[in-house]
C-alpha cells in the first residue's frame, strides 16, 4: 500500500509539472501583457523597460524556473489587472464558482434520478417520451443560448429574476462570500444554476434511464419479481441501487466538465467566479493570472483524483494489484 501511495503521489507531481509547463508555455507565447497596462502613447523603449521590471524579458527557462520556485512557496505570480497575488484573486473568486456548481449539481441530482427512473419504468408513457424529447433539445442547445433565453424570459419580459451578478452576499469564516444565505443571493442563483445544469441534466436522465432499463432486464430483478416483492422495492432497492454505481463514476468526471462550463455561464450572467475571471484575464492579457488559474484548477483535479485512487486502493486491494502489473 505504501509503495502504491508513493507511486500515485509521484504521478501527481509529474502531472502537475506538465500542466504548469504547458500553462507557462501558453503564457510565454500568448502576447504582450504590457499593451493592456499602458496607454497608446507609451513608447516601445518604455514598454521594454516595464517588461524588464516585471521580468518578462528573461529567457523562457529562467522565467519558468523562477515560476516553479515561487510556486513551491505558494506564490503563483501577480495579477497585473487586480494588482494582487494571483492566488489571492482566485481564492476570492472560488466561492462564487463552487456555489454555482453545487446548486447546479443539486438540481441535476434532484431532477435526473426521479425522471430517469420514471422513464425507465414506463418507457412508453407520454410523459417519458416528453422527457426524452426535451432532453435532446437540452443537450443540443448551447449553454450561452439557454442563459440568454432565460434572461430574456424571466428578467426582461416577466421581471421575476435579476439578470446579472450575485446579489447580496454574506461573509462566512472571514473569506467565503456566500450567496446561499440571503434571499437576494438565492434569487440570483436560480437562472445561472438552471443554465449550467441544462447540458448535464439531460445526459444524466438518459444515462440513468438506459442503465436502469438494462438492470431491469437482468436475472435477479426477474427473480425478485417472481418472489412477489412489491414493485417500489424492486425498482428502488434492487434495480436502482445497481444503476447508481456507474452513474456516480460518470458523475465524478462530469463534475470537472461542469467547472469548465461555468466559464460560459458566468460570462453571460456576469457571475463573478473563476470562470469569468479566467475569460477576462485572457481578454486583458493578464497572463500571470491565466497561468495561475490553469495551475490552480490542475492542482484541484490532480488532488481529487489522487485521493480517490488512494481511497480505492484502501477499499479494494485489487486496484493495487492491477497497478503493480
Amino acid at each position, binding site marked *: 500500500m505504501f509503495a502504491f501511495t508513493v507511486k500515485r503521489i509521484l504521478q501527481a507531481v509529474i502531472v502537475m509539472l506538465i500542466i504548469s509547463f504547458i500553462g507557462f508555455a501558453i503564457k510565454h507565447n500568448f*502576447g*504582450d501583457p504590457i499593451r493592456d497596462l499602458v496607454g497608446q502613447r507609451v513608447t516601445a523603449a518604455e514598454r521594454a523597460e516595464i517588461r524588464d521590471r516585471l521580468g518578462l524579458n528573461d529567457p523562457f527557462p529562467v522565467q519558468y524556473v523562477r515560476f516553479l520556485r515561487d510556486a513551491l512557496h505558494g506564490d503563483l505570480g*501577480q495579477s497585473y489587472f487586480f494588482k*494582487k497575488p494571483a492566488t489571492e484573486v482566485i481564492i476570492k473568486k472560488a466561492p462564487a464558482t463552487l456555489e454555482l456548481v453545487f446548486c447546479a449539481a*443539486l438540481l441535476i441530482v434532484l431532477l435526473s434520478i426521479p425522471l430517469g427512473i420514471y422513464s425507465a419504468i414506463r418507457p412508453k408513457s407520454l410523459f417519458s417520451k416528453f422527457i426524452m424529447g426535451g432532453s435532446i433539445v437540452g443537450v443540443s442547445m448551447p449553454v450561452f443560448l439557454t442563459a440568454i433565453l432565460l434572461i430574456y424570459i424571466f428578467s*426582461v419580459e416577466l421581471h421575476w429574476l435579476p439578470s*446579472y451578478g450575485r446579489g447580496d452576499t454574506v461573509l462566512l469564516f472571514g473569506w467565503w462570500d456566500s450567496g446561499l444565505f440571503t434571499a437576494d443571493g438565492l434569487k440570483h442563483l436560480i437562472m445561472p444554476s438552471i443554465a449550467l445544469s441544462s447540458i448535464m441534466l439531460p445526459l444524466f436522465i438518459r444515462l440513468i434511464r438506459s442503465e436502469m432499463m438494462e438492470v431491469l432486464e437482468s436475472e435477479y430483478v426477474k427473480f425478485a419479481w417472481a418472489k412477489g416483492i412489491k414493485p417500489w422495492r424492486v425498482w428502488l432497492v434492487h434495480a436502482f441501487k445497481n444503476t447508481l454505481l456507474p452513474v*456516480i*463514476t460518470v458523475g465524478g468526471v462530469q463534475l470537472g466538465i461542469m467547472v469548465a462550463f461555468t466559464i460560459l455561464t458566468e460570462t453571460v450572467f456576469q457571475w463573478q467566479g473563476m470562470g469569468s475571471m479566467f475569460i477576462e484575464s485572457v481578454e486583458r492579457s493578464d497572463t500571470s493570472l491565466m497561468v495561475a488559474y490553469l495551475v490552480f484548477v490542475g492542482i484541484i483535479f490532480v488532488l481529487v483524483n489522487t485521493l480517490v485512487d488512494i481511497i480505492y486502493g484502501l477499499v*479494494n486491494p485489487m486496484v493495487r494489484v492491477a497497478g503493480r502489473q
Partner: protein
Amino acid sequence: MKVSTFKTAGKFSLLVLSLLVAALMLVGCSSEEKKETAEKAAPAAPEKVTLKLAMDADPVSLDPQVQLSGGMLQFSHLVFDPLVRYDKNMNFVPRLAESWERIDDLTMRFHLRKGVKFHSGNDFTAQDVVFTLDRLKKSDDFKGLFEPFSGAVAVDDHTVDLVTKKPYGLVLNMATYIFPLDHKFYTGTDDKGKPKDTIVKTDYSFANENESGTGPFTVTSREQGVKTVFARFKDYWNKDTGNVEEIILSPIKNDATRTAALMSGDVDFVMPVPPQDLDRIKSTDGLQLVTMSGSRIITFQLNQKRNPALADPKVRLAMDYAYDNQGVVEKIMNGFATAAGQMSPKGYVGHLDSLVPRYDLEKAKALMAESGYPNGFEATMIAPNNRYVNDEKIAEAFASMMSKIGIKISLKTMPKAQYWDQFDAQVADIQLIGWHSDTEDSGNFSEFLSMCRNAETGYGQYNSGNYCNPKVDELTLAAQTETDLAKRAADLQEVEKIQYDEAGFIPLHWQNLSWASKSNMNTEDIVNVMNFPYFGDLVIN
C-alpha cells in the same frame, strides 16, 4: 475489472450517497422556505437617489495617474475634477480653474476656484496643482503628454502658472488632464512603509486603493471587477448641479446581458450599447438612447517599403476609390459609424468638410490601368479580430473590394494580444489600426500615424505604412509650437489635405458612441464625444 471494483465498493458508497442526497434535499427545502419569507418582507423603496450604472469595464485603479485610458478618465471625472473640461461642442469650460490668461509665449496663468475642499477635508490650493503636474511627469502613461511642460509654479494660493519649454498651443487641452490630487493626502508613507505618492501599475500602492479628490463623488466601496459604490461628496463646490446621491457601478462585459440588465430594470444606465440592440432600446417605452459620432478613426496603413506597388500614389488612390466607406458603415457597422475621408473628426481643428470619402469603382479601375500595375498585384494584410467593432469583418470586406481592381490580398486576423507585436514588426503590407487622439487635437494623429518614422524622436511611432512627406512633418511640427490658434488650424487642415490627395493611408470611419438610460434623466446633457459622461451633473426626476 472496473465494474467489479464498483460492485465491491458498492455498499459503502451507496450509504454515503444516500446520506448525501438526504442532506442535499434538506438544504434544498430550507433554502426554499427562506426565499419565500424573504419575498414577503420586501423592503420599502429607498428615498436616496441612486444611479445603477453598468459599463463594459470598470476603472483599473483609484489612482487617476496610473493609466491613460477611457475607463480611467471616466472615473477621474467622477472622483476628481479637472482644471478645465470640454463641453459638448468641445469648448473649454472652467472647473477648478475659474479663468486663465496667457502671460507670455511660454506661460499660461490659471486662477483657481476658492473654497474648494478635497474629500479628506484639506483645502485645494495651487500647491496641489504643482504636485499633480510633477506626478504626471513621473507617470509612464502621462509623461509623454506632459513632456512639453517644464512644470507648474504657484504664484499664490489660488493662482498657478503652467510653463512650457517651447511655445505650445495645447495648454488648455492638457489642462483637461490635470485632475488635482490632494498633495497632503498623497505625501508621506503608508502603514506598509511605502511612499504614498508612488505610481504602481501591477502591484499594491497607496494611491491604487485610496483617493482624495475634489470631485462630486467619493468612493465608498470597491471590489474590482464586481462593484464600485460612489457617494455624493457633501462639500462639493458646485451645489446647483445633479441630484444623484449614490452611484453603484457594475461592470457587465457581455453585450446581451448589459442590454438585458437595462431592459429588465436592474440597472438605470448602460454604456456602450451594443449595435445590435440599438433599435430595440429606441423602441422601448421608458428608455432613451443617445448616440453620436465618435472621434476614434479606423484606418488601413499601406506599407510602401514592404510592397513596391503601394509606393505608387496612383495605386493607393485607386485603392481608396475602390473602398466603399459608406457601404461598410451601412452593411457591416449597421449604420453605427461615420464614414471618414480624413483622420480628424468634425469638431477637431484639422477637420476639413471638403475631404469626403470617395468611392468610384470605375475611377479606381482607370487609376489602376494608369498605374505601374495595370494587372494588379498581390499583398498581405493583418487585422485584429477583437479590438475594434467588427474589425475582422471590415478587413474581409476590404480584401474583397480590392479584388475587384485586381489586388489579391491574403488576410490574417488575430486577437489583439498577439496583434500589436505583429503590427510593430510590420509583418504585412496592409495593417489596420484605430486611433483616438489623446489631446483631442488633429496634430496627434499625424504625430503618431503619418509623420516620417523616427526612432529617436518617436514621431511616426504607429506609422506602419512608412508614409513620409516632409511637408506633413514640417506643418505638424509648426503646429506644435504655434499659439495662434487660427494659424495652427490652417496648418493642420493642410496636413489633412496633403494626405487626402496622396492617399497616404485609407481612412474608413469613426466609431459611434452610445449610451442608454431610463428616460427620467437628462442623459442627453451629460454625455459627450469624448465618452466621459459627467455624472456629477446627472438629474434623475
